Structures are given as C-alpha cells and as structure tokens.
C-alpha cells in the first residue's frame, strides 16, 4: 500500500495545528480560575480547544487513505513544533535533556509505526 502525498500533508497540517492548540491551552492555563464566568471568557483556552478539534478533523481526513505505519509516526512531529513554541513564546529553556528525550520519543514512535505493518 502506498501513502498518497495528500494524506501525508493532512497529517502534518493536523500535528502543526495540534501544537498551536497546545499553546492555547498553556496560555489559558496560566491564569486559570475555576469559576464559570472566568472559564467562559478564557478565550485562549477556547482557542486551544478549537485548535485540537480542528486538528483531529485533519487527522481523520489524513488517516482515511494511506499506510498507518507511515502516517502514525508523523503525528509525533507535533512534539517538535510544541518545543519550538514553548521556547519562542513562553521562554522555556531548550535543554540537552529535553532535546535528547524528544529524539528518543521520535525514534520510539517510528519503531512502533514499523511494527504496525
């Protein structure tokens, strides 16, 4: 089974939007107040949730066609994006430990993907 470029593109768009969703959740969680009016007006949180919903639609469209063992590992590219946003937008330090851990996770998800076929 071959994986169409359109599926690869859709899954990558999904993981990119998902990483922006995570940024929204983090920004919304910063000043989180657990009262109904505060939650209703926490637009950063809403944007984060909307990002996740949008991302899952792209995932479903992408996973419709193509080889799961190819598409599955691509989802984890979103972790790389998120680490970049965390550094650029929230000033979180990019340590050797974090980069090394991320590399291990990418390798691990790739191996799991190979195990599917």
């Amino acid at each position, binding site marked *: 089974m071959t994986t169409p470029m359109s599926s690869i593109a859709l899954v990558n768009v999904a993981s990119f939007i998902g990483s922006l969703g995570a940024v929204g959740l983090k920004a919304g969680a910063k000043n989180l107040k657990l009262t109904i009016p505060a939650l209703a007006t926490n637009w950063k949180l809403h944007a984060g949730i909307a990002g996740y919903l949008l991302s899952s639609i792209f995932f479903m469209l992408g996973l419709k066609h193509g080889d799961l063992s190819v598409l599955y590992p691509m989802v984890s590219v979103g*972790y790389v994006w998120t680490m970049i946003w965390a550094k650029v937008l929230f000033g979180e330090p990019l340590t*050797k430990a974090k980069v090394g851990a991320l590399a291990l996770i990418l390798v691990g998800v790739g191996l*799991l993907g190979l195990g599917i076929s």
Partner: protein
Amino acid sequence: MSATLEQTMPEEILDAPAGSTPPKSAAQSTPEQKRKALWMVVAFTLLASVAQVLYKMGANALNKIPAGSMVDVTLGSAHFHISAALVAVATNVPMIVGLTLYGMGAVMMVLALQHGELSVLYPIISLSYVWVAILSVLVFHEQVNAFRIGGIAVIIAGVAVLGKSGSR
C-alpha cells in the same frame, strides 16, 4: 535521586538566552506541584488511550450500519424520520463513555499545564502510543513484534528523561 537532579540544574540556566526570565507561572510552581503535573499528564494519557480503544469498539459497531439508511423514532407523541447512523452514535455506549473520558482527560491536561512547562509535558503525551500498543494486543489481539517492544521501550526512556528534567 533529588541530589543528582539538582546537580544538572545549572545546564538549564546556561541554555537560557541572556536576559530572559523564566515564565512566571513555572517559577512560582513548587517542585511538588511540578511532579503532580507530570503524573496528571500520565493519567491523561491512560484516560485518552482507554477512550481511543472504546472509540474503536464503537466505530466497529457503526460500520455495520448501511450508509444512508434511515429509521423512524418516536419520542412521546413526536415522530422523527432520521439517519440510522445518528441514532447509532447517540446510543453507542462505548463511544459515549470514550468521549466522556476524553473530556475528563482534557480537564486534567489543562490543570497540569498550570504548573509545568509545555516543552516537558506535551511530549509525555507520547505515552498514549505505549498504552494503545499494549491495549491493541490485549483487546484486539494484534501481533506483538520486536519493533513494537523496541518502540515502547525507547518512548518510555524518552519520557523518563523528560520527567527528570520536569520535576525539579
């Protein structure tokens, strides 16, 4: 364990760009709160993985319904002629429980993000791949192979490294 963690701390400061200050919320969080945030994400991945398996079970049941078929539903004196798939989704217990678990997981994730760094917590979501791989074997009797075992081990190693850097 905490002694070795503290020794590696200066590295983080060196890697930070000159003049930058750590985010306020992370600086105010205690190590106790950070550890709690890590475990909440782990719990989130467990909930999300069980939800995914339930979702798949529910979807398998839905596949048996012919596309475009309609059913008649009577609620009191009102009669409806609606899509059979819609009725099947609304009465699909695994799917509803799965969605509820997803919702609970999302709340936990937001609470966790209050006290932890995004760059540490987000990649921990990869643990859900591990749980799904294990559940696929247990529930759907998918095959176990060397790639799967190796993948699980390497992901867990990566998450352990993140957990170490995130709990200080």
